[in-house]
C-alpha cells in the first residue's frame, strides 16, 4: 500500500506545475472563475494562452504533438488534470472547441473535417455548439431545428438557445433534425455551420450574473453545403458530447478542485468575520469538509476502475455531487457575511465579492450539462437498475 506516485508521475507533475506557474495569464491566476469580459471577440491574452498550451503539448496531453498533446498515459493525464484543478486554471475560455468539437471531428469526421480539428483545439477557430432549443432542454432528443436536403445543400430553419460563445464563434457544431418521421433519436444529424452564413442571427442572452456569454441563435433558410454533414445522415445522436474518452476518468477533478478552493476561502472568511469559534459555523465547515474529502475519495476510486478499463459507476455521481456541493459552499459563503452578503461591489465585499459572484454562477451548475434531476434519473436507471417509470 503506497500513498505516493512513482518517480515518472512526479517528474511529469513537476513539469506541468512549473509550466503553469510560469505561464498562466494574470487573468486566470488565484483560482478566479473567469467571467467572460464583455468583448466582441475572444481576448488576445486568452488566444495566446490556448495556443501556448497547444504548441507546448499541454492542451490535450493524451493526443500526439500535432493535436496539442504529448502522447501522455492515463495516469499522466490525471496528474495534469490535478494540477489544473488545484489552481483552478482553465485551458480555454471557450470549452466547446477543444472539449467537444475537436474530438468529435476526429472521431466522426471525414478527412476534410478532421483537418479542422487542430485549429478547433488550438482555439484558432472559435466554435459554439448548437444543442438546446426552447422546447428541447433536458429532452434534447426532441430538438426541432429542421435541415432539409435540397440538392447538394441543407436548408436550415429553427432556433437554438443557451448557446455559449455564439457571439464569438466563427463556426457552429449544429444538431438538426433531418428526418422528422423517424423516432426522435434516429432523425438527428450534425452539421458544420459557418456563423456568417446568411440567415443566421445571434442575439445575446444575458444570464443571471449580468454577463452575456449565452446567446440565442436564429436560423432562417440558412444554406449549409452537404459536405458539412458530420458522420452519417440521421445518425447524429451517436455524436455525443465529450468524446475526450481518455480524460473522462478525471473530469470530476475540476469540481473537486473548485470545492477545495471554496472551502479554503470559507475558512479565511470565518476567521476574518470573527466566527472561527462559533459552534454553528464550525459544525457547518466540518460538514462541508467531510463532503469535499469524501467526494474526492469517490472520484479517485472511480479513476482506479477507469484506469483498469472497467466502467466507473462512481463517476455517474460526480457531476450531481459536485454541482450541489458547489451551491452549498457558495451559499454558506454568503451567509457568513451577514448583511454584506447583499453587497456585490468588489471593493466592499469580502474577498473581492468572490462568493457573491461564485454563488450566482453556481446556480447554473445544477442545470447545465444535464440537470441534477436528469443525473438522478441516470443513476436510478443505469447504476441502481431501478425499473423505468
Amino acid at each position, binding site marked *: 500500500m503506497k500513498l505516493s506516485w512513482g518517480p515518472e508521475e512526479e517528474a511529469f507533475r513537476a513539469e506541468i506545475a512549473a509550466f503553469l506557474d510560469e505561464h498562466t495569464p494574470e487573468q486566470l491566476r488565484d483560482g478566479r472563475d473567469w467571467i467572460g469580459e464583455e468583448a466582441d471577440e475572444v481576448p488576445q491574452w486568452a488566444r495566446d494562452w490556448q495556443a501556448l498550451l497547444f504548441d507546448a503539448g499541454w492542451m490535450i496531453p493524451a493526443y500526439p504533438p500535432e493535436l496539442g498533446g504529448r502522447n501522455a498515459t492515463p495516469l499522466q493525464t490525471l496528474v495534469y488534470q490535478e494540477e489544473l484543478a488545484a489552481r483552478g486554471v482553465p485551458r480555454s475560455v471557450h470549452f466547446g472547441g477543444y472539449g467537444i468539437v475537436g474530438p468529435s471531428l476526429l472521431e466522426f469526421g471525414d478527412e476534410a473535417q478532421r483537418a479542422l480539428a487542430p485549429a478547433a483545439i488550438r482555439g484558432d477557430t472559435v466554435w459554439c455548439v448548437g444543442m438546446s432549443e426552447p422546447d428541447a432542454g433536458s429532452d434534447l432528443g426532441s430538438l426541432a431545428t429542421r435541415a432539409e436536403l435540397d440538392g447538394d445543400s441543407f436548408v436550415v430553419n429553427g432556433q437554438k438557445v443557451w448557446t455559449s460563445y455564439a457571439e464569438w464563434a466563427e463556426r457552429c457544431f449544429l444538431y438538426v433534425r433531418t428526418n422528422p418521421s423517424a423516432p426522435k433519436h434516429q432523425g438527428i444529424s450534425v452539421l458544420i455551420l459557418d456563423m456568417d452564413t446568411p440567415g443566421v442571427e445571434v442575439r445575446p442572452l444575458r444570464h443571471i450574473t449580468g454577463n452575456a456569454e449565452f446567446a440565442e441563435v436564429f436560423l432562417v433558410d440558412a444554406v449549409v453545403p452537404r459536405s458539412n454533414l458530420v458522420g452519417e445522415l440521421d445518425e447524429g445522436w451517436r455524436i455525443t458530447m465529450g468524446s475526450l474518452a481518455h480524460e473522462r476518468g478525471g473530469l470530476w477533478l475540476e469540481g473537486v478542485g473548485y470545492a477545495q478552493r471554496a472551502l479554503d476561502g470559507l475558512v479565511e472568511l470565518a*476567521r476574518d468575520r470573527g466566527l472561527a469559534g462559533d459552534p454553528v459555523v464550525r459544525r457547518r465547515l466540518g460538514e462541508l469538509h467531510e463532503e469535499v474529502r469524501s467526494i474526492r475519495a469517490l472520484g479517485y476510486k472511480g479513476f482506479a476502475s477507469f484506469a483498469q478499463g472497467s466502467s466507473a459507476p462512481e463517476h455517474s455521481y460526480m457531476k450531481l455531487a459536485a454541482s450541489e456541493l458547489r451551491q452549498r459552499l457558495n451559499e454558506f459563503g454568503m451567509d457568513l457575511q451577514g448583511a454584506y452578503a447583499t453587497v456585490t461591489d468588489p471593493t466592499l465585499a469580502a474577498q473581492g465579492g468572490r462568493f457573491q459572484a461564485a454563488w450566482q454562477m453556481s446556480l447554473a451548475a445544477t442545470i447545465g450539462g444535464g440537470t441534477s*434531476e436528469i443525473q438522478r434519473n441516470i*443513476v436510478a436507471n443505469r447504476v441502481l437498475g431501478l425499473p423505468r417509470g
Partner: protein
Amino acid sequence: MCWGCPVVDFALSDEQQLLRDTARALFTKECPPSLVRDAFYDVTDAGPAAARAFHDTRLREWAALGDGPLVDLALFLEESGAVLAPGPLWVSAAWALPLLRAAGHTEADAVADGSLTATVAVADATGRWEPGDHDECWFVPHLGEVDRVVFLRSGPSVLVVDAAEVVGSPIEALDRTRPLARVAVPAGSTSPVDPAAVADATDRATVGLAAELVGVGRWLQEATLAYVAERVQFDKPVGSFQGLQWKLVDASLHQERASAAVAYAAMCVDADDVDRASAVHVAKAAAGGSARHWARTGLQAHGGIGYTWEHDLHLRLRRAYGGDHLLGDADWHRDRLAALLLD
C-alpha cells in the same frame, strides 16, 4: 492540500479480492440471517448459544487481521458488518489488540491468534471517549463475550484485567447485537503506553467501525433496491416512481462517498500519510451518516413491513444508529474536522 493521492491503490489486489470473497463465502454459508435473528430475539438461549458457537469456531482466527494492514481488516469488517456477524471481533481485533501491542502486553499474541478475546473500556458516564481517571467506564462493548478488558486510562496508560474479575452491568440499549455495559474500574497498576500508539489504536478502531457501517449501509441498499423492484402498488413496481427513485439515489450517493472515504482512510493509516487525521474523521462521519441515511430511507421505502420485527431491516437500523454513536457520532467527527481547518 495533498493532490498526490492513492489513485491506483483503490483497486483491490488479488489477495484482497480473495480475502473479500472468502469472507463473503464464510458469512453466506455459515452466518445466515436466522442465526443473527435467533440471537437477537433470545427466546430459549439456544439462539445466543448458536451465535457464540459460530464466533468461537469460525471468527476467532480472523483476529489476526488486526496485526496487518488496516485495509485488509476493513475489508473483512465490511462483510461482517453487513451480516451483523455475532461476537467481539471488531473490538478485539481493531481496538484491544493494537492497545495490547502498544503496551507490550504478554497476551497480545493470544488475542491475535484468537485464543483470547478482549474489549476496551474508556468512555466515562458522559459518553466522552477519552482516557481519564473516572472510576466507572461506560459503553463497553461485548463485555459478556470476552476474556479480557483493556482499561484505557489517563497518561495514557492501560490496565488489562481478566473479564471474570470485573464488575459490570449491562446497559439496555438500541442495538442488542452489540451489547454494551458499564464497568467499575478495578484497582491495579497501569502500564504507560505511547500516546501515538494509543492514537493509532483509536484510528484503527474508528475506521474498523466505519467499515462495519459501510457494510450495514450496503445491506440496506441491496435489500431496499430488491424490495422496490418487486413491491407493486398502483399496478407498478414502487421503484419506478421518480419520487422514490431520487431518495434512493441520494442515499446511494452517500453510501458511495462513505465506502470511498473508508477505503481512503484505511490506506492513509497504513501509510501514516499526512492526510490521516482528517481522513479518519471523514470516514467515520460519512459512514455513520450513510448507514443512518439508508436506515431511514430503507425503512420508508419498505413501508409498513420495514417497521416490524418480521423483517430484518430493524436490526440494521439499530446497528446504524448504534454504530454512529460509538466512538463519536458524525457531528462529533465533523467538529474535529472543523478544528483541523480552524485551530
